[in-house]
């Protein structure tokens, strides 16, 4: 009975949230995909040590390593003790806050945004476990298009990251352009997603979701995957110069994500804003 009530109330909350997000703005589009929204709004196991979350946590290690490398490289390879403390980061589609917390621990002042109330709730609850992080990391339940409407957030962030998010949104090109608005001139953008290839269909949907259950079933929609060339174009159209496209691969035996020479499945991209 209780759980039934809870589900009902959650549904109400989520529908309100969706209305709240879409209503009252003059935007002509929304990056929210209704189906994905409902899917993620039900998901609260971001921080559980379950087989289905392991690849994401493993990937998080690699992507932070990648981001760190390019942030340092962008600073001419110099790391002063408070280099990261002076950086402002934006995590678009923060989910349960896995990436936001990592960036916070590195020292960056991080803002994590996500449209789903459930993800923000999980992220805020988990953040309270580390009292030092509370000062570093903030969460906001919003979309990127709503965020950049506020002038305060335009041209504000040293870098923005949207890792494993773009394959879950509508209007992908507009989504990247909106992220670009939040980044400072000469700031960096980090994106990661899956390529639309046969290999990615086999590995990420057939093998990881259906056969082995590494990833919760229904997480991915192959039609929404983006090929590196397409993303490259999107990023360049948004005013960035692409510095690197790096492939990655999950290695289940030692539960590690490793750099991979080709970008047929998972890949990350880093771009530098020109103006």
């Amino acid at each position, binding site marked *: 009975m209780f759980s039934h009530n809870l589900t009902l109330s959650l549904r109400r909350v989520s529908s309100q949230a969706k209305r709240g997000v879409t209503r009252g703005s003059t935007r002509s589009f929304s990056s929210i995909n209704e189906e994905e929204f409902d899917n993620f709004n039900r998901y609260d196991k971001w921080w559980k040590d379950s087989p289905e979350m392991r690849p994401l*946590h493993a990937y998080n290690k690699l992507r932070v*390593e990648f981001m760190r490398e390019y942030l340092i490289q962008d600073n001419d390879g110099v790391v002063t003790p408070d280099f990261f403390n002076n950086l402002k980061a934006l995590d678009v589609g923060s989910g349960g806050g896995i990436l936001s917390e990592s960036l916070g621990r590195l020292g960056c002042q991080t803002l994590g945004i996500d449209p789903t109330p459930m993800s923000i709730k999980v992220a805020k609850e988990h953040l309270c476990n580390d009292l030092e992080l509370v000062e570093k990391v903030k969460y906001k339940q919003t979309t990127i298009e709503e965020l950049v409407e506020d002038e305060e957030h335009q041209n504000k962030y040293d870098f923005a990251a949207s890792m494993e998010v773009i394959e879950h949104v509508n209007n992908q090109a507009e989504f990247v352009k909106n992220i670009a608005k939040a980044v400072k001139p000469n700031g960096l953008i980090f994106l990661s997603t899956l390529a639309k290839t046969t290999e990615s269909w086999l590995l990420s949907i057939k093998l990881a979701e259906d056969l082995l259950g590494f990833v919760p079933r229904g997480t991915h929609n192959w039609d929404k995957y983006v090929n590196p060339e397409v993303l490259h174009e999107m990023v360049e159209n948004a005013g960035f110069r692409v510095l690197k496209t790096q492939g990655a691969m999950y290695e289940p035996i030692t539960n590690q994500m490793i750099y991979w020479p080709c970008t047929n499945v998972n890949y990350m991209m880093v771009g530098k804003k020109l103006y």
Partner: protein
Amino acid sequence: MINLGTRKWNRASLRTCRSYSTYSDITVVGNDTAGIATIAALLKTELFQPSKSHKRITLVHKAPFPSSSDYNNSDIQKIPDQDTPQYFSRQNPITTINFSTLQFLHSLGALDKMNHKLITPYKKLFVNEMFGKSYVSFNDQLIDQDFISQFKQRVYNETLSSHDYNYFGKNSLGASVERNHIQSILYDMVRDDEKCEVIQQEIKTIRPGKDESTSTIELQDGRIIKTKLIIGNDGENSYVREAHDIESTSHPYGQQCITRTLIHERSLEGCYQRFLPTGPIALMPLWGNYSQLVWSASDELAEELISIPDEAFFGEVNRKFYEGSKYDFGRYSEILPNFWPRDNYEMPPLVVNSNEASQFRPRAYDLKSQSAIHHADTRVALIGDAAMKLHPITAHGFNLNITSAAILANEIIKQARCGGDIGNYPFCLKNYAHLSKLNELQARALVEAFKKGFQDTFFGNEKVGKALSFVRNIGLDILEVNPMLKYDLAFISAGCINHPLKYQWTEEL
């Protein structure tokens, strides 16, 4: 009434004043060398910068550390030329360190701070046994012997390992050094670093953190440390292990280890080890004519050896090394000696008795095997004797602990550079726990194989024991004439398989 009330209030306020709490990312508890080495490695990185209110690494220890000034005073500088009995009479444990450990210390910059005259590298190792005439000798020319070994060396050096193995003289097999020497240097490095706080206090309680929160350590003076990761470095009766409910198994080997500094008629060429029915006996070279004896013997024999006069003790040691094979292989004994020529085996120089020699007293301690079921758990990692304790037969213990320290430091640095939670088990400490346990199990298997394999009886069966010793002799012969196999063995015993190939703290950003 009012007075009473005030007094109560005063006491309460005093108590709260005394129990202030601090925060630290990593807290190392205890005196073992491995934990100190882990901190020293962590301090080499750009990470763990202290904040305004606290330092990020804390070392809590109760017993004082040895002082490094003992090893740098002018008397000891002269040791190779002039013998200084004061030094040896301290009777500190001497340990054999392999190449990986040397490399590790070098990467920390500790090797450069040590007194090199007190580190004795050895280039030869002779192993034989009492039941037969076969032997194996390792020496520094081993690698120059044939092209296959040379090729292997190149392959190993270039593909497997980025370390420079020629740091301590070409192709040295290892070195013998006083354990406190290493410890004192590492402790100095930790103490002098401003990123680390050192507290000499006893621990009152530890409250392990649940999954996501911090652990709490309360000290005797009421101070409270909140920490993300506790490293249990507090020896075999570890309180950290107990507080985290990590089970440990232990069993006595039923043997005692006798150590004593000996003086020989001339200096030793290398290490000598001989397998006796009662256990192995080994001589490790020290500077000059000195050597360190490590003799594993049964309880009764050990007691007897401790109590007999010096003359008899030295005689016994000489006899154990020089006594010929008393084993009769029947008609096979005629075949065996002719298998391969055995003329290049070197006997250790004789132990001589003198007034100086009798200043060093023999010491005996119980040999015990101990092992923690897990080497890590959420917010805790065990290292050093708290995690494992092994038989000295293969000289593994200390080197394995240093290897564990290298693995743990690597994992923590990797996790911290990715902004992860360093106390997290599944994504950080699990790797350490698995690798460290694997190394322990390997070493344990080797110890058992040596212990069971080199006895005169096999599980109480004399005939099988005899057959086994025959097989063993042939095995040793094959090994002796086969530099390829020997190179592999030397490679394994240098710790090159277990030790991490890359150190995170020496990596350039």
